[in-house]
C-alpha cells in the first residue's frame, strides 16, 4: 500500500480476519504443544522431540514466499509476523525463537536477497521437513556494535573471504543457511552462507546462556571462509533496516512472554492468602499487577505501530527503536515483578517465573536472531 492511500486510512487496532484465524490456530498450538513442554525443555536444555516438525506443519515459512517460488504469496507482512511472534512467545520464548529462525532468514532474503538466492533457499527451507537456518549478527564480547562488526569481508578474486567470529547463532552446524553480517570496506554487508558448500574454515562451539536454554545457540568462528560473489545479499541491503526488523521482532517476543507472566500471576495473587485474605486485596500487590498490565499494553501498541509503519513502507526507525527500548526495560521489569509477586515460590524452579525472569533478559539481544 503506498503512502498516498495510507494517509486516508483510519487509526485501527483490529486484526484482519486472516490474522485472527492465524492467531486462533497459533494459540491452540501454544496451548496444546508449546506450553506443556516449555518447562521440561528448559530443564533438559534441548528442544522437545518433534517440535520443529510440528512447527513446519503449521506452514509459517510458506506464507510470505511468492507463489512462483513455491509459497503462499502473502508477501512481506510485518504486522502478521508480530502477531505470530507474540503468540508463540506466550507459549515459550526459546521454542519460539527456534521456530522463527528460518522464517527470519526468509524475511531477510525477501527484503535483501536477489532472485537466485531466494530460489535456492526457499526451495530447501520449504521442502518436506523443517530445515534449520539462522542469522549471525551478534559477535562475542561486550560493547559490540552491529554497525561496525569485527568480522570482516574482503574481496578476493570473484568472491569474498570472511574472517571473524559470531555469537548467538541458532542451530549452529545444523543450520543449512546462515546469514552473516561483516564489515566490507566502510559498510556492513550481509552474506548467505550455505553450510553444505561453504564449510571450509567454519567451526562451531555451543554457547550456554542465562536463559533461552532449550534453544541451541552457537558461537561460530569464520577462519578465512571463502564465499562466491553470489553469496552477498546485494538487493539494497541496509544494516539499519535489518536492525529495525530485529527490534520489532524482539519487542513482539517480549510482549508474548510478558503476557504469559501476567496470565500466570493473576490467578496466583487472587488465590494466595496471607493475613487472612488474598494478597491481591492489598494495593502493594494489586498496583504491581496494574502497572504490569499497563506497560504490557503499551509495549504491544508501540510495536504494532512500528510494524504497521514497516508494512506500509513508512520510516519505522523511531518507532522500532522505541518499541525495543520499552520492551527491554519493561520486559525485564515484568519478569522481575513476576518472581517478586510469587515470593519464594517465584525463586524455585517449580514455577516458570524464574525461567521467564531469565528469558526476558534476552530481549535486548533477540533482534539479532529474529526478524519481523
Amino acid at each position: 500500500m503506498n503512502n498516498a492511500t495510507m494517509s486516508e486510512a483510519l487509526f485501527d487496532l483490529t486484526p484482519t480476519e486472516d490474522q485472527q484465524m492465524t492467531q486462533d490456530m497459533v494459540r491452540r498450538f501454544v496451548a496444546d504443544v508449546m506450553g506443556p513442554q516449555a518447562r521440561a525443555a528448559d530443564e533438559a536444555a534441548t528442544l522437545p522431540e518433534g517440535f520443529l516438525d510440528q512447527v513446519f506443519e503449521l506452514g509459517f515459512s510458506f506464507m510470505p514466499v511468492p507463489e512462483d517460488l513455491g509459497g503462499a504469496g502473502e508477501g512481506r507482512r510485518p504486522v502478521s509476523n508480530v502477531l505470530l511472534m507474540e503468540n508463540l512467545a506466550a507459549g515459550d520464548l526459546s521454542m519460539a525463537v527456534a521456530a522463527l529462525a528460518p522464517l527470519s532468514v526468509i524475511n531477510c532474503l525477501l527484503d535483501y536477497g536477489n532472485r537466485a538466492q531466494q530460489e535456492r533457499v526457499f526451495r530447501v527451507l520449504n521442502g518436506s521437513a523443517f530445515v534449520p537456518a539462522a542469522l549471525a549478527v551478534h559477535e562475542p564480547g561486550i560493547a559490540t556494535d552491529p554497525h561496525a562488526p569485527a568480522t570482516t569481508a574482503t574481496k578476493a578474486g570473484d568472491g569474498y573471504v570472511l574472517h571473524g567470529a559470531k555469537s548467538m547463532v541458532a542451530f549452529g552446524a545444523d543450520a543449512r543457511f546462515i546469514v552473516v553480517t561483516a564489515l566490507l570496506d566502510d559498510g556492513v554487508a550481509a552474506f548467505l552462507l550455505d553450510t553444505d558448500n561453504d564449510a571450509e574454515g567454519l567451526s562451531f562451539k555451543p554457547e550456554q546462556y542465562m536463559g533461552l536454554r532449550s534453544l541451541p545457540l552457537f558461537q561460530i568462528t569464520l577462519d578465512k571462509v571463502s564465499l562466491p560473489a553470489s553469496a552477498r545479499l546485494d538487493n539494497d541491503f541496509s544494516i539499519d533496516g535489518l536492525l529495525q526488523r530485529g527490534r520489532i521482532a524482539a519487542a513482539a517476543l517480549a510482549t508474548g512472554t510478558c503476557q504469559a507472566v501476567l496470565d500466570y500471576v493473576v490467578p496466583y495473587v487472587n488465590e494466595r492468602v496471607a493475613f487472612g485474605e488474598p494478597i491481591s486485596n492489598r494495593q502493594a500487590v494489586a498496583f504491581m499487577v496494574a502497572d504490569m498490565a499497563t506497560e504490557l499494553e503499551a509495549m504491544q501498541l508501540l510495536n504494532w505501530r512500528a510494524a504497521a509503519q514497516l508494512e506500509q513502507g513508512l520510516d519505522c526507525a523511531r518507532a522500532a527503536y522505541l518499541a525495543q527500548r520499552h520492551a527491554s526495560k519493561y520486559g525485564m521489569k515484568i519478569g522481575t515483578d513476576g518472581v517478586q509477586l510469587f515470593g519464594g515460590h517465584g525463586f524455585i524452579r517449580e514455577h516458570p517465573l524464574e525461567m521467564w525472569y531469565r528469558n526476558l533478559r534476552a530481549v535486548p539481544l533477540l533482534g539479532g536472531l529474529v526478524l519481523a
Partner: protein
Amino acid sequence: MINLELPKHLQDLQTLLRKFSNDGLRPLSRKYDDLEPKELPEELGPLSELLAAGRKQRSAKNSAEENGDAPQTEVRNGTNLGTVVGAAELCWGDPALFLAMPAIGLGNAAVEAVATPEQKQQWGELYAAMAITEPGCGSDSAAIRTTATLDGDEWVINGEKIFVTDGYRCKQVVVWASLDPELGKAAIKSFLVPKGTPGMTVTRIEHKLGMRASDTAQIVFDNCRVPRTNLLGDPEIAKTAEARKKAFGGVMQTFDNTRPAVAAQGIGTARAALDITEALLRERGVELGYNREYARLSALENDLYDLEAEYEAARLLVLKAAWMADNKLPNSKNASMCKAKAGRMVNTVTLKCVEICGQLGYSKTELLEKLARDSKIIDIYEGTQQIQQLIVARQVLGKSSSELK
C-alpha cells in the same frame, strides 16, 4: 487493519492547532503564569470562539455519522479521538491556557450530556465549572457532604466545594450534592447553579504551583436556591442496592470518556518539553538518530530515548482508549491505564527535561520549568495516579471495590 497512524483529517487538525498554539498561546504563556489572574485572560475569549467554531463543525459531522441508524460495521475515528488529538496539540501550546479556555471543561460536558433544549436556552451561553471536591473528600467522591433538599419547587443547596477549576470566572457551576447522605452514592445528583444566584459565594482563590492561567476557587453554598428543573439527569434515587450501584456507575462512566482527554493534556505537555529540550540540544550537536546501540549512547542521549519511549507509550495508550470509545468498546480499564501512564509520564518527562537542560532548564528564560510545574496536577486531577491504578487493578484482577480498597 492494524494501523496506528492518524488519518488525514486528524493530521490536518493537528497542523491547524499546532499553528494556533504556536501563534496564539505560546506568546501568552509567561505573561499569565506570572500574573496568575482571577479573570479570564482577555486574549482567550476570541481564541476559544475560534476553536469552538471549528469544534462545532466537526462535531456536527461526527454526530451525524455516529447517530446514524445503521449498525456500526466500519471502524470509526470520531469525537473521542479528535478530542484527545486536539487537547494534546493545544497543551503543546500551553497547558494552563488550555485549561483556562471557556467551555472545554467537565462542567459543559456534564450539561451537554443531559440538558434539554429548553434548559440550554434558558441557561444561555454555557461556561460551566464542575464542583465535586470538598475539604473532606477528594478521590472518594461518594463521600460528599454537600446537600440538596427540595423546598416547594426549588432545591436548597448547602455545603462547601474546593478546587473548582474556573470557579471564579465561569458563568455556571455544576455542583454535586446529596439528596440524602444516608443513602450514599445513589443519592448524589448534580445541579446547575448560575453565577449570581444568592447563597453561592466564591470565598477563596488558590495560588498554585502551576496551571496559573486558570483559576481554582473555593465556593460556599449557604441556602442557595435553584429551580427544581436545575437538577441534571434523573431525579429519582434508585431503590435497590443493585440499582444504586448502577446509578453511580453511570455517573462514573462519564469519566471513561473524559480520562483519555485529560491524559491527552499530559501528551501535549510532555511533547512541548521534549521539543524544547531537543531543540536546545541540537544546537549543542546532540541529534537523536534512533539507530545507535546502547553501548554507544551518552548518558544524556540514553535519558532522551527513555523519555521518548515513555512519551510514545503514553500517547498510544491514550489513542487506544479514545479509539475504543469511538468504536463503542468498553474502555474503562484502558481509560484508566492511559491516564495513569500519561500522568506519571508527563511528570517524569518535564522534570527530566529541566534536569537535562541544567541552568537553562531551571531558568525562566525557557518554558521548561513552567511545564514541569504545570504537569504535576495532570497526575492528580480527574483521578490520581493511585485511583487509576486501583481501577486498572480491579479490572485486571476481577475485584470489586469492597475487596480491593
